C-alpha cells in the first residue's frame, strides 16, 4: 500500500487531467475536432498567472479568473483565424499540432525557457493526523470541485448548456430550433480553453512552470478521453481519475516504467472496447 502522499499526488493529477479532458471533450463534441494544442493553453495559463502575480501583484484567485478570460479570447481567435479556414478534419488536426510548436516557441521567446516557481502563493501545510496536505494542493482540489459543479449546472440548468447538449447530439436539428451553431462553437471553444488555462493557473504553485510543461498533461488527458470514450463527458472525468491515480501509484512501484504500463493499459482497453468505457453517450 503506497503512503498517503502518493494518493494525494494521484488526486492532484487526476484533478488536472479531469479538467483538461473535460474541456477537450466539450470542444470535440461541438466542433468535431480534437484540439491537440490544449496542453499549450494550460502552459500559457500557468505563465500568465505567474506574471500577473509577480509583476502586477494581483491576488491569486483574481489572477486565475483573468487568465481564464484571456485564454478564452485566445482560443476564440484560434477558432476564428485558423480552424474556420481549414477544410477537413485531418488538416485541422495537423494545424493544431503545429500550433503546439508555435505556442511553445512563442512562450520561450517571450518568457525564457528556464523553470519558474510560484511557491510564495498560499504557503503552509494542513495536517490531519498522518496526512499532511499543503494549501496549494488543497486549492487544486477545491477548484476542481467548484469547476465541475459549475459545469454541471451550466450544462443542465442554463439555456446555453442545453443548447450545447442539443448541438452535440444533432447539430442540424439544433440549428432548426434557432440555435446558432457557429456562435455556440465559439462559446464552447472559449470555455474549453479557459478550463485548460485555469487548470494551469491553479497548478502553477505546485509544479515548476516552463514553456514545455503542457506536453505530458496533454497526452494524459488525451489518453483519459480515449479510455472514457471520445465524446463522453462522464467518460472524460472517470478517465481522468483513473489515469491520475494509476500514474502515481504505478510510478511508486515501477518508477520510469509506469508510462509503459499506462500505454499498454490504454492499448488493451482500446482493443477490447474501442468505443471506450462509457461509449459515446453525448455524441
Amino acid at each position, binding site marked *: 500500500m503506497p503512503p498517503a502522499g502518493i494518493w494525494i499526488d494521484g488526486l492532484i493529477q487526476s484533478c488536472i487531467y479531469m479538467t483538461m479532458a473535460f474541456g477537450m471533450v466539450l470542444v470535440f463534441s461541438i466542433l468535431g475536432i*480534437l484540439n491537440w494544442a490544449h496542453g499549450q493553453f494550460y502552459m500559457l495559463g500557468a505563465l500568465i498567472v505567474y506574471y500577473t502575480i509577480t509583476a502586477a501583484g494581483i491576488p491569486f484567485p483574481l489572477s486565475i479568473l483573468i487568465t481564464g478570460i484571456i485564454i478564452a479570447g485566445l482560443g476564440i481567435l484560434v477558432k476564428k483565424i*485558423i480552424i474556420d*479556414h*481549414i*477544410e*477537413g478534419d*485531418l*488538416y485541422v*488536426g*495537423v*494545424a493544431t*499540432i*503545429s*500550433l*503546439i*510548436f*508555435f*505556442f*511553445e*516557441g*512563442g*512562450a*520561450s*521567446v517571450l518568457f*525564457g*525557457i528556464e523553470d519558474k516557481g510560484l511557491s510564495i502563493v498560499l504557503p503552509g501545510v494542513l495536517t490531519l493526523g498522518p496526512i499532511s496536505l499543503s494549501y496549494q494542493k488543497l486549492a487544486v482540489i477545491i477548484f476542481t470541485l467548484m469547476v465541475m459543479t459549475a459545469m454541471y449546472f451550466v450544462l443542465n440548468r442554463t439555456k446555453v448548456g442545453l443548447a450545447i447538449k442539443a448541438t452535440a447530439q444533432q447539430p442540424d436539428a439544433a440549428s432548426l430550433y434557432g440555435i446558432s451553431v457557429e456562435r455556440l462553437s465559439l462559446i464552447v471553444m472559449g470555455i474549453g480553453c479557459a478550463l485548460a488555462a485555469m487548470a494551469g493557473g491553479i497548478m502553477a504553485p505546485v509544479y515548476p512552470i516552463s*514553456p514545455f510543461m503542457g506536453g505530458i498533461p496533454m*497526452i494524459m488527458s*488525451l*489518453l483519459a478521453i*480515449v479510455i472514457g470514450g*471520445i465524446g463522453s463527458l462522464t467518460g472524460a472525468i472517470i478517465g481522468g481519475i483513473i489515469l491520475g491515480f494509476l500514474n502515481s501509484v504505478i510510478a511508486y512501484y515501477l518508477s*520510469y*516504467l509506469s*508510462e*509503459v504500463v499506462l*500505454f*499498454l493499459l*490504454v*492499448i488493451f482497453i*482500446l*482493443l477490447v472496447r*474501442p468505443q471506450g468505457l462509457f461509449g459515446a453517450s453525448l455524441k
Partner: protein
Amino acid sequence: MMTYIDYKTVVPRVAIALGVFLFLMMPVFTQNQATLSVFILIGLWAIAAMGFTLVLRTGQFSLGQSAFLAIGGYTSAILTVNLEWPFWPSFLMAGLISGMVALLVGMVVLRVGGIYFSIITLALGEIIRIIANQWEGVTRGARGLITSPPPTLSMGFFEINFNAGPIPYFYFTYCLVAVTAVIFWQIGESRLGRSFAGIALNPVLAEHQGIHLMKYRVIAFTLAGVFTGFAGCLYAHFLTVITPFVFGLWQSIQVMIMSIVGGISALVGGPIIGTFLLYFLGEYLTRLGGAGIQPLLFGAVVVLVLLFLPKGTGLIDLWGKFWTKVVWREKEFEFDEVEE
C-alpha cells in the same frame, strides 16, 4: 504511325530529371561534410515520410513512425555491437524486424482504425522510447550504443570506404531513397494503390466491392515499417551513435508534418519535397539562434501552408500549377455557374 511527343508532359519531366541529376552530382561540387550530412539526413527522413504517406493512403493516421526508425536502428546496433554480426546481415534484419513489428502491431491494431489507431501508434512510439531509455543492459540507456560504419566494400577496380567520409553514405542513402521511391510509385500506379485509395475514400463501399480492408491496411503499414526500418539502421550507422532522444513523439510529428506540407496527392514527390523544404527551414532557423525562434516560425509556416493551400494540396501540387499557369498560361477549366 506518327507518334506525338507532347512537350507539355516531356518538358516538366526533363526538368525533374535534370534536377535529380544535378542533385546526385552534388559531391562533385561540394565535399563539405556538414552540407552532405544534411542531405543524408534529409534522405532518411524522406523515407520515413514516404512510409507515413503510404499509411495515410489507406486512410490511417499513424503518429508513431519514428518508432520504426528506432526499431531499425536499435536492431542493427544491438546485432552489430552486442552480438558482433557483420553490417549487411544486420542491415537486412533491421528492415525485417521492423516490418515484423509493423505486421504484428498492424494485425492487432488496424482492426480499430481511425483516431484509435493514431493514439495506439503514439503510445507504441513512446513505449519503444521508454524501453530504449530504461533497458540499460542491452541499449545502454541514455548513453546510447556506439555503432561502427559499414565495412569497406571492394569491387575489384575500386572500393567503397565508408570510413573515409560522407560521400559513400550519400550515395547509399539515395540508392535506398530511389528503391523506396520506385517501389512506392509502382504501388501507387498499380491495383494495390487504387485499392488503398478506395479504402481511404469510402471504407464501406470498398469492402462491398470485395476489398479486404484489414489486408490492405496491414500491407501498407508493413511496407512502411520495412523501409522506415532500413532508414533507421542507416541513421544509426551514419551518426555512429544511437540514443533514445532521436526518436520520440516530436520526431513522429515532424514526419507527419513533412509529409502533409509536401502534399499527400503524390506518394513519392510530396513527401520528398516536404522533407527537403522543412528540413532546410529547420536547419536555417536553428542557425538564427535564440531558443524558441525555431519552433515558433516552424509552427507558423506549417499553419500558413495549411491555410493557403487548402484540402491537402501540399507544395507538390504547385509544381503542376507552375507549368500550366505560369509557363503555358493555360486557362483552367471552370464549371458553368448554375443559375438559381
